[in-house]
């Protein structure tokens, strides 16, 4: 009480100043709930807002609450949209957010979006509404073209960052690069690696020439070695480079200039790209390997075998490595012996068919864990895994915060013992107290969920596929994982019992995704009725069936558009895809026909 009355005598500016030391947005969220005065001070002084689910709040409301907003981060579609499990036109539209910001938040400078649909028109609106716009980061987005990029380039006087990661961008020609005005010299970071088409090389060179602050540059595959060399000669301060196509003839001028250019870039710490990399061009990279902290070879199937080994053995300071499984267990063994500081490893499959001679197995993973005890983040695709390997790995690396293991064949048991992999994954949750993200695969029973519920207390995100036996599995997780924020499940035998076991739990989470499980419409309706603060959405593409039913007079057409097909009397129907999330925004107003909010 005394503290509170003491705070009353502080002018607002002082409280605001105190709040400015709180940069972590959950902390700011917390202080805003203390009292009305603090809520007001906090909201008016807030500069950065993170919205993990764009449907959790209406854009207008968010914009009105934080008029001083400078930086907005938005996430749209659920994670499984990455794997084509969410139909196109589902939603996640950026337009309404950009419009709301344009109306209410004049100071917006940075926009980061993931899995959202952005149109060219929205991009135009963005850059016209905010002439001082500085940073646009788009990850796994779609709906726009190079024309939209041209608009961004053209209109931003002081653009610092244009970062495009793995977006589906419609290619309307290379001219967008020309749109950067001659007076634009502010670029610090430019990433267009995901663009599939040609770029205007001369424009690129000129742009780089007039960007003395450029630290991060990631090119696309269309940029040849000659241009790369020219560019690198212009920016010796480059720290993060994504090469274009790394193909050059020996003794060619391009090759020679590449070597000398690379040697000039003493600050280079991160490399990616490596498309079509020839062994020769890799040789050129060796001299800078010793200082590299990040290396992404996951789009370079040509870098394997001895070439990979020759390259990686120099990378003694490496912290982050992304590779294809074509490097094999042998390649991973070299990583283990050379990269003692390694913290993050991702091994992607290069061939989805049979396991070739040079793919990775549990041996590679064990070797890594033995040689790299600082490993804390793992994404590993392999054809098989054993319990004993997982137990060894968790003993060697107790610091995992992110552990994702994908055994390519669903429900595959431990080949050595024929048993499920419950004990192996159980060992991971038992020893890794800081585990925040977990993805499991292979043959798994309810037992693994018992372990997860019991030990994974820090867990925030869990991804499950083809696992479990009964509702009890999912219930263990809902009951035990106190910090769970996102739960995504596919092809598991969890039904209404599991779904309804603890309905209030979902209010503490960002979202729940269940597809191809055993839940029924009845169960989903029950959830929706009990928890009005959640949006319970089911995705069903029964268009053809509905048309047929209507033609045959089977289904009753109810005028409420949303309920048109829901109430034809059969609640026992299995629900194919369920997406549940907490929201203060009410049911979506932009839901397409196949998304039904119950």
């Amino acid at each position, binding site marked *: 009480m005394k503290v509170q009355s003491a705070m009353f005598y502080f002018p607002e500016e002082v409280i605001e100043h105190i709040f400015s030391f709180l940069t972590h947005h959950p902390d700011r969220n917390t202080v805003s709930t203390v009292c009305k005065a603090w809520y007001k001070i906090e909201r008016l002084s807030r500069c950065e807002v993170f919205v993990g689910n764009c449907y959790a709040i209406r854009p207008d409301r968010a914009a009105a609450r934080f008029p001083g907003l400078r930086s907005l981060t938005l996430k749209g579609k659920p994670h499984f949209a990455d794997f*084509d499990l969410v139909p196109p036109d589902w939603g996640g539209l950026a337009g309404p957010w950009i419009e709301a910001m344009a109306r209410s938040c004049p100071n917006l400078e940075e926009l980061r979006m993931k899995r959202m649909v952005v149109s060219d028109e929205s991009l135009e609106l963005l850059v016209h509404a905010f002439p001082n716009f500085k940073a646009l980061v788009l990850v796994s987005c779609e709906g726009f073209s190079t024309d939209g990029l041209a608009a961004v380039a053209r209109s931003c006087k002081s653009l610092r960052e244009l970062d495009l990661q793995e977006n589906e961008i419609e290619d309307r020609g290379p001219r967008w690069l020309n749109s950067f005005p001659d007076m634009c010299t502010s670029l610090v970071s430019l990433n267009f690696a995901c663009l599939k088409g040609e770029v205007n090389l001369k424009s690129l060179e000129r742009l780089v020439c007039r960007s003395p602050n450029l630290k991060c540059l990631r090119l696309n595959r269309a940029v040849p070695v000659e241009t790369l060399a020219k560019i690198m000669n212009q920016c010796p301060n480059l720290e993060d480079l994504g090469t274009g196509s790394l193909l050059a003839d020996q003794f060619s001028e391009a090759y020679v200039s590449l070597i000398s250019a690379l040697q000039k870039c003493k600050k280079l710490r991160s490399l990616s790209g490596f498309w079509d990399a020839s062994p020769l061009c890799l040789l050129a990279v060796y001299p800078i390997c010793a200082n590299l902290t990040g290396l992404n070879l996951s*789009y370079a199937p040509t870098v394997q075998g001895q070439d990979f080994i020759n390259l990686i053995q120099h990378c003694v300071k490496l912290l982050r490595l992304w590779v294809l499984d074509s490097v094999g267990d042998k390649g991973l063994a070299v990583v283990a012996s050379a990269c003692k500081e390694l913290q993050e490893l991702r091994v*992607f499959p290069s061939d*989805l068919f049979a396991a070739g001679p040079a793919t990775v197995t549990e041996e590679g993973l064990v070797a890594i864990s033995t040689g790299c005890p600082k490993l804390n983040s793992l994404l590993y695709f392999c054809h098989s895994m054993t319990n004993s390997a997982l137990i060894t790995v968790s003993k060697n690396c107790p610091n995992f915060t992110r552990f994702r293991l994908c055994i390519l064949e669903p*429900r595959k048991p431990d080949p050595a013992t024929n048993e499920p992999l419950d004990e192996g994954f159980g060992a991971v949750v038992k020893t890794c107290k800081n585990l925040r993200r977990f993805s499991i695969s292979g043959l798994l029973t309810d037992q693994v969920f018992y372990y997860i519920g019991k030990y994974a207390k820090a867990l925030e995100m869990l991804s499950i596929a083809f696992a479990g036996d009964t509702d009890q599995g999912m219930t263990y997780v809902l009951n035990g994982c106190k910090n769970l924020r996102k739960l995504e499940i596919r092809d598991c035998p969890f039904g209404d019992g599991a779904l309804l076991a603890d309905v209030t739990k979902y209010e503490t989470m960002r979202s729940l995704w269940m597809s191809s499980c055993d839940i029924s419409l009845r169960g989903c309706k029950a959830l929706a009725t009990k928890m009005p603060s959640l949006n319970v959405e089911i995705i069903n593409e029964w268009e053809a069936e509905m048309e047929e039913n209507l033609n*045959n007079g089977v289904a009753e057409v109810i005028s409420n558009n949303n309920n048109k097909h829901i109430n034809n009397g*059969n609640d026992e129907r*299995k629900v194919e895809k369920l997406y549940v999330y907490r929201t203060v925004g009410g049911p979506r107003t932009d839901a397409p026909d196949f998304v039904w909010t119950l």
Partner: protein
Amino acid sequence: MRGATDDDVEERGVELGLSLGANKNQNHTATARRGPPCRILTAKDFPASIAGPSRASPSPSQSSSVSSSSVRATDEDSGTDVVVGSTSPETGSGSINPSSSQTVVGWPPIKAFRMNSLFNLSKEEPANNKLKKANRKGHHVSCSNGHSLAEDQDKSQLSGRCLYVKVNMDGDPIGRKVDLHSHGCYESLAISLELMFWGTTTSSTGYMNGSRLLDNSSEFVLTYKDKDGDWLLVGDVPWSMFLDTAKRLRIMRNSDASMLSLRFQQTYVHGGHEQS
């Protein structure tokens, strides 16, 4: 793909109203079913690859993991496989390799962007040959308009783009997606759709006689929705123009098609594109 016998092929040749989707809770009406029901396979259809511990078998009424956006077509340069198979318990998984993760929709969990990039990466991709082996039918359709399938694959690889459009068939609640860029002509597309929805081509001599979807000889016709939202009969415009305007496909019952006046007129001019 399908472990179909010749008998099955003939059966299906007669009955094109085969309804895909074994979900017993769906309200299928008149479409008669002959032959084993077909549905998209998920891993639960495969016995555990090694006789492992007993586990609860999934309920038969569980719907399969399907959505029109998650199915990948028989796409020779995308590295993925058609997810259709005949799965009655008697025939089992037939010719499908149960250890392949390819027959499961949306699995392995690799970003679609990465999948597309990886398998469009090298132009003389040896994976293409592997894919031809893995494609159990092994069709190679040579297109009468002069393009070979390979040429157009190169083209789309060079442009690096896939062009997925949704395909629905009347009576089938499960929609699919097909990559138009992986085909060089209408024949190739139609054959691929027949394989996708019926698991086999409609004549026992396969593609030699052309697709029945295109020549008006089956109960179904292939239609598409263009940029302006109109539904038109597939096959009337040059292939490249079709690629530009087609937004969606629908395999429509012949009877419905005539009601919608889709018949091609010689002098039909549509949206500024003049038919030759």
